[in-house]
């Protein structure tokens, strides 16, 4: 794990977090930490909030649908980047998964208040750049960017 402060034009912070699939009890723990880090870096509150929502949705997807995942946070002077890679069942039809309301959630996921088919659309809504690739039976990779020096409606 590399953890460096962002204090110059070339400097950046990179931090990696592990997410355990199926661990509903600790789900959201990584996102809470990421939110604290972004706040401590002095990033504008609206961007911190958008980033936290994106992180939480991405983390919940790993908890719900994968065996294990790695969440890499990178902050540069220009942007916040998330790379969320999991080992899991993958997504057979990404276009369908991106539709609001489409969900393959189990009753356990719904009892936790998740699995309403809003996760990926909500990530896209709050991100400035969003890429998703997936291989059935292997896993899913999300790359998300939020720009620090621009204005986007909430």
């Amino acid at each position, binding site marked *: 794990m590399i953890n460096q402060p962002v204090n110059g034009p070339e400097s950046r912070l990179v931090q990696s977090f592990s997410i355990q699939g199926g661990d509903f009890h600790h789900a959201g723990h990584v996102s809470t930490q990421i939110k604290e880090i972004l706040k401590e870096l002095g990033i504008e509150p609206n961007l911190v909030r958008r980033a936290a*929502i994106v992180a*939480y*949705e991405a983390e919940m997807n790993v908890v719900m649908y994968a065996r294990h995942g790695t969440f890499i946070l990178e902050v540069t002077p220009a942007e916040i980047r998330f790379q969320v890679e999991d080992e899991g069942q993958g997504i057979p039809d990404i276009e369908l998964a991106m539709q609001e309301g489409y969900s393959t959630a189990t009753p356990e996921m719904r009892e*936790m*208040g998740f699995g309403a*088919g809003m996760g990926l*659309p909500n990530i896209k809504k709050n991100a400035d750049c969003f890429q998703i690739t997936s291989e059935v039976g292997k896993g899913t990779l999300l790359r998300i960017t939020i720009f620090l020096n621009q204005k986007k409606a909430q």
Partner: protein
Amino acid sequence: MKLAEIKELLRAEIIWGEEYLDHEINMACASDLMSDVLALGKPGMLLITGLATVQSVRTADIIEAKAILYVRGKKPDQEGIALARKKGIPLLSTEFLMYQACGFLFGRGLKSVKDEEVDR
């Protein structure tokens, strides 16, 4: 509307956060679906929910809700309360059903996070 008025109106119990009762709440969002709360929630709102897992507190923290009102007498466990303390999110619990709680609050002028008029 102050949190204290919400407490009085709904005969709610303060689970934690007595010192936040003079805080002003201007809007609310009611749902048991945290996915919807993440999609629709706004900073400073009151989260009204029947979901008393620790995820309700985590979601409130992520979207920066000002307080959580649990309906039907529900309360989070000690872990949820501890997280709410750490994050400074007051917790209330009312015996009213969600529909009743929302109706009373809306009737007193507490707006929705998505404020739209209907044809009457």
